[in-house]
């Protein structure tokens, strides 16, 4: 084993030696990239090799103390379980299924078991360190009166250098992700005290409304969030020896993590929060508290006015030029902006008809249909399964967006990418309407890498009194997946209508850059 280690060291030395020689040669650029590529993977390789070295060293020690290790084996398993349970006190019933995975491992060989145990101990060590950091944060921001745990801050993510091919770690990560699904059955308010003292009441109201879906839709969630923040600021009193600019931001942190646990934050909410935090930190320490609070509330009003109202008006104006008489417009789901555009165009006298496409399980199209018909537009309603049947009639497709990603992808309700794809196949132009405050710097190329998971029980349907999937949780090989969002590549989108004008999808990073420069 020592020999192999030497060889690996030699390999490293050789590679660095080679690059040093070759940088002198003429093919600089090509080799630079090669070097950089090697350097990155080198670091990763170094880390992995260190891990392996540690494990091998430990294995050597283990072999010497075989009997003692056997005795110790149940203890690290228990520690692992306890650490898990400490991490997730509110969802204790879901932690118990972790006992079976550790039991299954008895079939493996001794060596593999020890490797697993070491990996688990590494995980526990790092998570305990992380927890200590979080606990100190919690103590400073939250009151410690109520012994039942208030919702923990952000769900912990495992550090990346933990071996991702270790099945124990993978199982833990999977369980953690599963926990985020079943939000409606175990409401967070169960563990909280009823006149909520730690979390401001309007934030609790908001969290409940998010998790029950009463406030849904990117714009409405953002407006409701800002409304709740206005209430928080109104009821805020700076404690002594503290500055408003720093303390208020700290006060907002547990609220934001609470809202995140009720329902993952949307991109619009994220941007609004960034804006507010910036405004709060920019409050100068000279002015009085009352004045500062009114300034902040005015800032919030201004933000909503500019970024949502005026943006909607501007977008509607641009979109009006794109809607011609006799058009057949296809819309999907329920987007407040697209509804506004269509109603506005109708009021201004354009003659067109609308096809509303809807999909299970949310069936938001019914709400769009109701609003448009109430205004007087003539509408057709189909489910997404019939979209390729309807498309030959359609002249344009208008889609709303939840967020526009930095690589030009459009994140919208699940199903929108399908509509865009089919529209492309039929050569129907797809126009996405999105305000600039929803542009975010994330990059995503597919819908699975990061998404919000909704309650899987929504997918179950009862027909004629029979519910086939009623006990789907008992079937071990079956999992239900209810995705909320999906991403549409920029090739399928012909135009993005924003308050800055009509831009192609690929110009999103330019807009982001310009926005950052402004701010």
């Amino acid at each position, binding site marked *: 084993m020592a020999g192999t280690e030497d060889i690996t060291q030699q390999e490293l030395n050789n590679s660095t030696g080679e690059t040093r020689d070759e940088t002198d040669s003429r093919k600089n650029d090509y080799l630079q990239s090669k070097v950089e590529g090697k350097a990155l993977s080198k670091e990763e390789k170094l880390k992995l090799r260190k891990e392996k070295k540690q494990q091998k060293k430990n294995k050597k020690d283990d072999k010497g103390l075989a009997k003692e290790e056997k005795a110790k084996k149940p203890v690290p398993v228990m520690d692992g379980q306890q650490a898990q349970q400490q991490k997730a006190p509110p969802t204790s019933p879901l932690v118990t299924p972790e006992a079976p995975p550790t039991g299954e491992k008895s079939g493996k060989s001794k060596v593999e078991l020890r490797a697993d145990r070491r990996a688990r101990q590494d995980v526990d060590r790092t998570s305990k360190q992380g927890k200590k950091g979080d606990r100190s944060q919690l103590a400073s921001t939250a009151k410690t009166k*109520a012994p039942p745990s208030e919702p923990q801050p952000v769900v912990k993510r495992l550090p990346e250098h933990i071996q991702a091919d270790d099945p124990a770690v993978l199982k833990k990560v999977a369980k953690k992700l599963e926990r985020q699904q079943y939000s409606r059955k175990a*409401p967070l*308010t*169960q563990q*909280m*005290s*009823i*006149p*909520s*003292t730690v979390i401001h*009441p309007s934030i*609790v*109201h908001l969290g*409940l*409304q998010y998790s*029950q*879906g*009463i*406030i*849904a*839709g990117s*714009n*409405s*969630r953002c*407006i*409701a969030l*800002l*409304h709740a923040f*206005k*209430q928080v600021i109104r009821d805020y009193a700076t404690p002594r020896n503290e500055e408003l600019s720093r303390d208020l931001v700290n006060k907002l942190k547990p609220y934001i993590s609470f809202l995140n646990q009720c329902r993952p934050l949307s991109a619009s909410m994220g941007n609004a929060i960034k804006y507010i935090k910036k405004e709060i930190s920019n409050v100068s320490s000279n002015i009085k508290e009352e004045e500062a609070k009114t300034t902040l509330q005015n800032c919030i*009003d201004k933000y*909503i006015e500019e970024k949502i109202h005026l943006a909607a008006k501007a977008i509607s104006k641009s979109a009006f030029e794109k809607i011609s008489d006799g058009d057949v417009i296809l819309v999907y*789901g*329920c987007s*407040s902006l697209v509804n506004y555009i269509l109603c506005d165009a109708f009021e201004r006298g354009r003659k067109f008809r609308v096809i509303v496409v809807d999909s299970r399980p949310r069936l*938001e199209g*019914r*709400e*769009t249909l*109701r609003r448009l*018909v*109430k205004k007087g537009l003539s509408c057709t309603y189909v489910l997404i399964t019939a979209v390729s049947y309807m498309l030959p009639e359609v002249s344009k497709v208008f889609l709303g967006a939840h967020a526009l990603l930095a690589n030009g992808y459009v994140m919208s309700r699940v199903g929108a990418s399908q509509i865009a794809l089919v529209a492309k196949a039929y050569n129907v132009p797809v126009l996405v309407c999105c305000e600039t405050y929803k542009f975010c710097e994330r990059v995503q190329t597919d819908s699975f890498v990061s998404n919000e998971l909704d309650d899987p029980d929504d997918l179950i349907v009862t027909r004629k009194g029979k519910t086939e999937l009623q006990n789907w949780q008992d079937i071990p090989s079956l999992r239900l997946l209810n995705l909320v969002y999906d991403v549409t590549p920029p090739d399928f989108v012909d135009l993005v209508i924003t308050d800055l004008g009509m831009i192609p999808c690929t110009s999103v990073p330019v807009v982001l850059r310009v926005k950052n420069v402004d701010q």
Partner: protein
Amino acid sequence: MELQAVVMAAGGGSRMMDLTYSMPKPLLPVGNKPLIWYPLNLLEKIGFEEVIVITTKEVHKQMNIDTKMKLEMVCIQEDADMGTANALRHIQQKIKTDILVVSCDLITDVALHEVVDLFRAHDATLSMLMSKTHEFTETVPGQKGKKKTGEQRDFVGVDSSGKRLLFMANEADLDEELVIKKSIMRKHPRMHIKTGLVDAHLYCLKKSVVDFLADNKSITSIRGELIPYLVRKQFSASTNSQKTKDDSEKNQKKTDLKTPDIHISSKDEDLLDLAREKSCWNDHRGDMSDAYHGGKLRCYVHIMEDSMCYRVNTLAAYIEANRLAPKVFSEEFPIHPTAEISEQSMVGADSIIGAACHVSEKSSIKRSTIGASSCIKEKVKITNSIIMNGVTIEEGCNIQGSVICNQAVINRGADIKYCLVGSGQCIEAEAERNNEVIVGIDQLMEI
């Protein structure tokens, strides 16, 4: 602060006068704890820190509950027959936020967050708790014949989700027919009407309702008048239209309920309305109206199925509660450490013995509750009974299915079955009583 808790403990217990003529209802022992301990315990468990208790001076003097919460006692005159709404009007100055009103005779272990979540999520004006009625199985002393059901039924109408309260009427208020307004049917074509529900008298009310009560002095009782009024007002045309200002100017006598959002600054309320407008959610489908049909006044009800919920306002309920409450709520030992129980006596596992009791030899106590400082002599057989504080039971007695109130004395050899012995009464030796209510002469005069 989000919610203020108010416990109504000034009631007289008019439906069980035999028990309450000597001891005020909030202090009646259930499982050796005063009745008022149960709602206070419920509030403490879910996290309330301060409670306003509206009670009489007498109760205030005798009450000593150890609780971590801060109890603010508001005393009102006992003889003034104050309705619950009047009591709320009395404390209107202390009320700064939305309130949670609990009656002192509620024994329940419901998860209160269900009721409060409805209140929060839908921005409701009223949110209440109801429970399915349980049949009382124990024989009630002094009751002749079967209990007459259906005399004071409540008709409760809920929508198809089972949460929104559409209709509430008591049988006593109706002549022969149940009248349902067309406006309700137009908005909620499917309504489920339930009759087997008991009102737990636990209400979450918005602050504007308390302010409304202060202006409108004609409403005296929460349950009897205010709640049906609010439920009716949901569908009244005036709250939905924009004419509220005209209405309030017109009728000064019948003050109308102003739209509940006046106390919040108008700008903020606009924002919330805007958020709701842009949201793609609707509580109903099939017609063209917005969420909640555009109504600002909403009443919600949480109907609980499994948990225990008792309102101890009749004798039958009192006995039933004594049977079941200790099983759920007792934390300490059923037998108080200071009680002296002789070794040859038999105390069943489901019996509760209070402090400083004295149980002599060869006595057997089964499924019973013995209050503090009671003295049970030899060879006494007590089954299925409730013995309150300071009772003396001489030797050889046989007590079955009865309620013996404070300071009563049962002389030797008495055989008491299914009786209610009033406070301070004395049963003579070798007496045989069956299914009787034995109270003092002065009590008989009070009707």
